[in-house]
């Protein structure tokens, strides 16, 4: 209880409150503009937050992360163009509703479901905290190594239909983080004699290239367009009442969001697809799905908004990010010398509670903001795409250059920008590179520190948690092989067209 009060006290500062407002409202706007997603915004703002207090910087980034999906629902519903990648499923049912003249109902339902999912996620986070504080100290080097390995395996396997590409890119990420001077033996690795490679390839430079610059290049090379959304009429609060009729779907969908958000490597996409399928299977009117079913809309929005809070669990408790956005936030912790992991719950529990409350407040702020300003947002999203490209380019410079004032960084980042553009155009995933870099680094460090205590390979899994994670790895791999065998026998491999057709934002 005392810790909770300390957490609240952390938020009671004008700069934190300001960061919360800027982050949450900025996040909604960024999410609503098709062409800029939270990843672009967080990548650009990341270096700027390094000079702020950890709680201020984190609140702002968390605000963008948690609120962008609310905004992303607007273009998904009104013009069939998801504002952020994870709103893809929202457009399946949202847009048919708009075509049927129910745009207002769809939007208010999406906001309500998002709010439900968001608050449910935070509720779980708060309830789980005492358990986490108990379990987290049981995670030593071996356990964290295995959890990171599970994350890598899951991020590869989660890209069904693109497993080789995802594996290739994840391995590339692991390789990238090894470049430079090895911190333990002081030997050079893949520097090819260039001094600028000695200090390694900076994660933020790569992130800015792959997410921000690539997006600028993508928009600048594509034909100019300007999304045109029609304003909607009516009160936005009606959705809450309708949501109450579908409490079961909303709660189960949020549950999927929480569980998959906690597991590294899975996240919003899988959560959405699973809850959408669940909603369809249990619905009284399954044929309406894809043609304007309120349940489908609720399932997708509640699931994706429950993820941010849940994704904070592995990040805060173990220091393991589950996807690209939390991987970026991890660097904010590192810059301020706050190392997420078991010690965080013992030494900085007030920061953890502060972040929880920030998440609750952010959902409330966003909800209130959206109730009044949806029509204003339909005007803002009309920014022409190439103009947006020019702005992203200028903003990316702030991010890359402020890091170390290095022109070389700008060049490396531009190189990754071109790589990111190619990946986006080929619809190949970018996230495995980032997770490969972050989790690869964690695996290397943790394996090294675990080694002195290992006499035989079996010592790696002789502790309960390590054994459980190892079993999970085996199960995940076995299940995957089983699906493959089934596909061979069924003579029809499952083709995956839509699930990852979403690398363009």
């Amino acid at each position, binding site marked *: 209880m005392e810790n909770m009060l300390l957490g609240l006290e952390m938020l009671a500062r004008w700069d934190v409150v300001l960061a919360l407002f800027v982050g949450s409202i900025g996040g909604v706007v960024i999410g609503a503009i098709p062409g800029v997603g939270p990843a672009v915004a967080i990548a650009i703002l990341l270096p700027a937050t390094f000079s702020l207090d950890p709680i201020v910087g984190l609140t702002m980034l968390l605000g963008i992360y948690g609120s962008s999906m609310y905004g992303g629902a607007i273009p998904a519903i009104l013009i069939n163009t998801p504002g952020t990648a994870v709103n893809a499923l929202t457009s399946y049912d949202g847009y048919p509703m708009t075509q049927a003249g129910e745009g207002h109902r769809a939007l208010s339902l999406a906001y309500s479901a998002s709010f439900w999912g968001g608050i449910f996620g935070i509720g779980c986070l708060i309830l789980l905290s005492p358990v986490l504080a108990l379990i987290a100290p049981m995670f030593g080097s071996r356990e964290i190594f295995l959890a990171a390995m599970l994350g890598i395996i899951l991020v590869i396997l989660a890209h069904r239909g693109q497993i080789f590409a995802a594996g290739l890119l994840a391995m*590339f990420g692991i390789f990238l983080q090894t470049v430079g001077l090895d911190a333990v033996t002081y030997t050079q690795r893949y520097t090819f004699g260039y001094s600028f490679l000695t200090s390694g390839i900076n994660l933020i430079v790569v992130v800015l290239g792959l997410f921000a610059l690539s997006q600028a290049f993508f928009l600048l*090379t594509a034909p100019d367009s300007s999304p045109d959304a029609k304003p909607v009429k009516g009160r936005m609060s009606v959705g809450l009442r309708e949501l109450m009729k579908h409490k079961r779907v909303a709660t189960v969908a949020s549950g999927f969001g929480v569980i998959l958000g906690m597991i590294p490597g899975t996240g919003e996409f899988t959560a959405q697809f699973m809850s959408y399928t669940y909603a369809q299977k249990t619905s009284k009117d399954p044929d309406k799905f894809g043609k304007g079913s309120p349940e489908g809309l609720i399932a997708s929005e509640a699931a994706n908004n429950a993820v941010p809070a849940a994704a904070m669990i592995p990040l805060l408790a173990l220091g393991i990010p589950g996807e690209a956005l939390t991987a970026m936030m991890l660097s904010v912790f590192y810059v301020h010398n706050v190392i997420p992991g078991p010690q965080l719950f013992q030494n900085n529990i007030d920061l953890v509670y502060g972040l929880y409350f920030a998440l609750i407040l952010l959902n409330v702020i966003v909800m209130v903001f959206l109730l009044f300003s949806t029509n204003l947002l339909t005007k803002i999203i009309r920014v*022409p795409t190439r103009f947006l490209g020019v702005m992203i380019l200028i903003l990316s*410079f702030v991010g890359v250059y402020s890091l170390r004032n290095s022109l070389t960084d700008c060049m490396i980042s531009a190189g990754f920008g*071109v790589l990111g553009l190619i990946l986006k155009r080929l*619809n190949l995933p970018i996230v495995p590179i980032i997770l490969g870099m972050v989790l690869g680094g964690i695996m290397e460090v943790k394996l090294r520190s675990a080694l002195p205590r290992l006499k035989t390979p079996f010592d790696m899994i002789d502790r309960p948690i390590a054994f459980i994670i190892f079993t999970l790895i085996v199960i995940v791999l076995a299940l995957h092989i089983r699906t493959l065998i089934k596909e061979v026998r069924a003579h029809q491999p499952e083709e995956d067209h839509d699930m990852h057709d979403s690398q363009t934002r």
Partner: protein
Amino acid sequence: MSRIKTLQSLFKRYRRPGDIVFAWALLILSVFLLTQIYDQTAYRSGGKLFAQPRFWPALSLIGMTVFAAFHVLGSLWSERIEGRWREVLMWVASLEYAVWFIAYAALVPYGGYLPTTVIFAVILALRVGYRSTLMLGAAAISAVCIVVLFKTILKVNLPSGLIYEALPDGLRQIMLTYF
């Protein structure tokens, strides 16, 4: 035979034009990097295998090569999609904007953050096809807002230009600090 066909169909995947070019390029890169492993990493005699500085680069590069090889196989066994070289040209075209970005970054320390950003925004807006005063004005104003937000208010670590040195005393100090 039918078993082989089924296996082939397992490797087929949904893809876009240019996929095979990318697949080959990455396979070549992976193999090249792997061949450099002895030159570019060290091996400490007597140390444990897992603690070797060579271990992680080797593991990741072997993984990269294997995955890249399968990726190429997947591309080869899927039906050919027309338009791969048009797509590659598109990638090459994006290099132009990479050059714009690097040129901008190279000019800021000389031209000053504010002037370079405004000029860059307007020229790039012209380059991508905007001609109306409204759009060009919007580009310039947005550029000023970005400078004020990051350099003046947030005091982000960005260079002030050599060009400011030529300004009169009072103004120079202000420009060097805030713009």
